[in-house]
């Protein structure tokens, strides 16, 4: 066939196909590849004939397989190996692993060791929560979801709070992290956890440094809370956003509490409350298998946690569905209060402003996070003042043969479970990890779908919508690295609206700070 | 780019000939091997001999590199314990050999592929027996392919 005729035929074919495709009503919005994100996340939104969102899939597309490749490793290596699940919250894994080792070898660390661990742990929580507020979640509120995209990022935050304050934030975080390294060796991937205690003593000089920085930390947090009140709580638009139904889910909540049902991040009972706020269950960490189950979907590498006795009923909420939530909002919901003075006041204010317990508004996580920040810094102060901190007895040597161990802590992003089975020599035979963000995975998927359905109508996707979709899951401060034991995650998005033939109709880009650009 | 050829060109099924790399100590095993040759003893031609001044010179890196570059087996020959020209060298060999064996087991490499023999300068027959025996054992195991054949690799499959 002569070339022109072939070309003309080819052209006619293309045009015909395009017409046929344009007539085909199904639409798909793919958010891929995602930028502004630690690791990868992906969202596929499908519209029906009327242009309404039929289904949205929130996918986490990576897996490294920690639960498999730790098999054969000595159990005492686990605190340092599992910390590499996530470089943002390595101390959480390190601590859960260390507690699992205590359980594995049936040793109870000396009181000084527990205090050192809890002190370092609260320092880490403070630093991590502050990072999230100022650099990740905060821009949504400090600068505002409707502010011009160019300002809705960390530079905009600096613009709003001033360069001096920004330096103060950077310096505070640096000082916290230096403290962690002082005891734990390194801030990223600490080394100090051992079964029965910690590796290194706290000297009087070190204790003094802790006391100084702890006091600074409390002041800094009070400032941060004031900032939040001025910028967010006094703004009626923000408050309605927080209280809006679009960002609300009535699920169960889970978190760790002490013997008096107050929030404790390091040790205690795991408590679950129902959507109506009443206690549904309270259990010891080593009983987790009776309560927590994981569900698998073929479209994501993350597994979705749910309450076993309630059952998996799909991505729905309410008392009949086993889906639950963790992290700051959940921890405040499941507890009766905070064990430190200022944090308790902040806790009471939180619930009185938001209309009593439980609070189901996802965006309230940002505020709850600051209440916890205050608790963490006050707790640091308490522990740093303890004279027993510098005691030289920091280890108990194991004598029992290892077999099985479970350790649970509250990571910044939720309840974290490490469970190991070993042979007699202490080599891992099997490991099971329920990692913080997994507990939120189902509710996050629901949040994405709900907001997408609520805001997206037709293929013509308005500019602000991606920000709002992202706000839905950013409030959970997700960590996809943890969730799939794969890569850490926040959710920057690229929304590409495509016709069935693959032609791009619109391209929207969402920044990690929340700003959205239309291409 | 630091890239090594991990799998050599696949050989037709019927003709697998094991490739053994041997590290022989200059003072005994190497001399014995010479003697094997001059005595016209027949032994399998599958061995490439590398002469070192002492079996203790065998850096574990050599052994792993040999496997990585396509050797199907590695043989070390040294002086009998107590007879080392440098006094202690062969004890180092023995300790490293044992730890290497444990590592290779974890890496899924069969035991028969890595062998240590104490052979004195006069023991030409030991050289012949060790080589012949090892070649047959490795022949039975087949080629050491650390990674699958090209067409099975994920680069193509994904």
């Amino acid at each position, binding site marked *: 066939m002569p070339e022109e005729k072939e070309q003309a035929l080819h052209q006619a074919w293309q045009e015909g196909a395009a017409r046929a495709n344009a007539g085909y009503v199904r639409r798909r919005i793919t958010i891929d*590849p995602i*930028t502004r*994100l630690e690791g*990868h996340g992906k969202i*596929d939104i499908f519209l029906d004939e009327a242009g309404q969102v039929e289904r949205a*899939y929130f996918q986490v597309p990576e*897996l*490294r*397989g920690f*639960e498999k490749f730790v098999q*054969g490793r*000595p159990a*005492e290596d686990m605190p340092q*190996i599992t910390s590499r699940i996530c470089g943002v919250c*390595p101390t959480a894994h390190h601590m859960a692993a260390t507690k699992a080792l205590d359980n594995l070898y049936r040793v109870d660390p000396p009181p000084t060791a527990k205090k050192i661990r809890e002190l370092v742990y609260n320092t880490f929580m403070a630093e991590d929560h502050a*990072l999230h507020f100022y650099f990740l979640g905060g821009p949504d509120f400090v600068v505002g979801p409707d502010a011009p995209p160019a300002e809705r990022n960390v530079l905009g935050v600096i613009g709003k709070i001033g360069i001096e304050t920004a*330096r103060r934030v950077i310096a505070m975080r640096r000082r916290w*992290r230096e403290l962690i*390294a002082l005891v734990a*060796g390194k801030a990223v*991937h600490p*080394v100090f956890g*051992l079964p*029965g205690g910690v590796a*290194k003593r706290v000297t009087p000089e070190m204790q003094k440094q802790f006391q100084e920085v702890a006091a600074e930390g409390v002041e800094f947090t009070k400032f941060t809370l004031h900032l939040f009140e001025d910028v967010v709580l006094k703004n009626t638009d923000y408050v309605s956003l927080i209280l809006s139904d679009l960002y609300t889910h009535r699920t169960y909540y889970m978190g760790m509490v002490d013997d008096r049902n107050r929030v404790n991040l390091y040790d205690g009972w795991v408590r679950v409350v129902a959507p109506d706020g009443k206690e549904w269950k309270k259990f010891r960490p080593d009983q987790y298998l009776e309560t*927590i*189950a*994981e*569900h*698998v*979907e*073929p*479209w994501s590498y993350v597994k979705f946690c749910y309450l076993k006795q309630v059952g*998996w009923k799909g991505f729905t909420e309410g008392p009949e569905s086993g889906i639950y939530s963790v992290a700051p909002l959940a921890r405040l919901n499941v507890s009766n209060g905070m064990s430190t003075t200022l944090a308790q006041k902040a806790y009471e204010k939180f619930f009185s402003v938001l209309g009593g317990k439980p609070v189901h508004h996802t965006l309230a996580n940002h505020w709850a996070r600051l209440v916890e920040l205050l608790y963490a810094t006050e707790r640091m102060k308490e522990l740093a003042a303890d004279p027993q901190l510098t005691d030289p007895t920091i280890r108990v040597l194991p004598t029992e043969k290892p077999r099985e161990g479970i350790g649970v802590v509250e990571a910044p992003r939720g309840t974290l479970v490490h469970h190991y089975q070993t042979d007699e020599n*202490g080599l891992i035979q099997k490991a*099971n990890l329920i990692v913080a963000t997994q507990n939120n995975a189902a509710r996050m998927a629901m949040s994405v779908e709900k907001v997408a359905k609520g805001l997206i109508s037709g293929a013509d996707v308005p500019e602000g919508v991606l920000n709002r979709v992202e706000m839905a899951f950013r409030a959970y401060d997700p960590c996809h690295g943890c969730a799939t*034991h794969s890569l850490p995650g*926040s959710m*920057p998005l690229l929304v590409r609206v495509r016709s069935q033939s693959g032609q791009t109709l619109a391209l929207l*880009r969402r*920044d990690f700070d929340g700003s959205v650009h239309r291409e | 780019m*630091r*890239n*090594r050829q991990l799998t050599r060109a696949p050989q037709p099924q019927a003709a697998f000939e094991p490739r053994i790399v041997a590290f022989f100590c200059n003072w005994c095993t190497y001399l014995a091997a010479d003697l094997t040759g001059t005595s016209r003893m027949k032994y399998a031609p599958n061995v490439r001999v590398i002469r070192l001044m002492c079996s203790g010179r065998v850096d*574990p*890196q050599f*052994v792993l590199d040999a*496997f990585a570059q396509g050797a199907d087996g590695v043989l070390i020959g040294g002086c009998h314990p107590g007879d080392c020209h440098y006094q202690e060298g062969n004890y*180092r060999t*023995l*300790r*490293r050999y044992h*730890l*290497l064996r*444990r590592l290779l087991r*974890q890496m899924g*490499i069969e035991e028969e592929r890595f062998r240590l023999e104490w052979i004195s300068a006069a023991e030409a027959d030991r050289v012949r027996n060790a080589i012949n025996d090892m070649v047959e054992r490795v022949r039975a195991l087949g080629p050491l392919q*650390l990674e*699958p054949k090209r067409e099975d690799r994920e680069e193509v*499959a994904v």
Partner: protein
Amino acid sequence: MTPAKPKLAFYWCSSCGGCEETVVDLAEAILDVVAAVEIVFWPVALDFKRNDVEAMPDGSIMATFLNGAIRTAEQEDMARLLRRKSGLLVAFGSCSHLGGIPGLANLFDRESILHAVYLESPSTVNPESVLPLTCHHDKGHTVELPAFHNTVRTLDQIVDVDYYVPGCPPPPRILRTALQTLLEGHLPPKGTVLAPDCALCDECPRQDTKPETLSIAEFKRPQELLIDEKTCLLAQGLTCIGPATRAGCEALCIQGNMPCTGCCGPTSRVQDQGAKILSCLASLVEGKEDAEIDRVLNTIPDPVGTFYRYGLPGSFLRRKKLNEVQAPK
């Protein structure tokens, strides 16, 4: 008119985010960096996406710092793209340099990982044996996930690498020095690891207590003894990888009173770090006969995990022998 600022990019593959934290841990110094360069691509913090990188002229990025091991086709793709667009490609952190801790997955294959996570986990309720699929159809929708390979690879097994910044994570000090070196333009020979080229023992605060000779009758696991805070850890019987590890980290783990685990990789004179530490520790074993030696070696229960914790993909053997391969579903 001020000259254009050199362009810098950061990207991550199969990593944990700890290397990103190192950048943030430059703390106040990061404001100086931001003033001196133009960051054109940094998925964690900035909004640029793949299309922006593709649109850049080849070689226009002065340097890209890439962390994370290479595990998926998507990561390989990005590595190749960034190689094209960058004058210099820097492998940043243990994972891209040596394979890192995710490299321990090279002791297994993809199928066994999927089975362990989705089928064998005691908390997972999965009666229909559902596994994540690379392509899934649900009510007329097609949803995709990237497949991951059987074998984890280092960056230089995929593309040409100019420099390496070692560590897990690289200490901020090493990153600062690396950035200064590149910005000042006094480029070292290609392939240099941007950290001191001597063993950690030379930097260790406890080196004065390191004995001339050592004969170990029993290796100790850290929970088996109260670790002295001043004495050489190897002398205490712990499997400290310091002798086979590059310096530059100020021996932070030793300052935390725990042994070095080898994250900075070897010096330039060693190709396979695990083999070298194996050689070193074996040499110290007390015993001249098989039985004695075996008894001592029983106290190192996991040679590959101890010697190759960070370096398995970058080692000579790279992975455990793989017997069968199945294509991803």
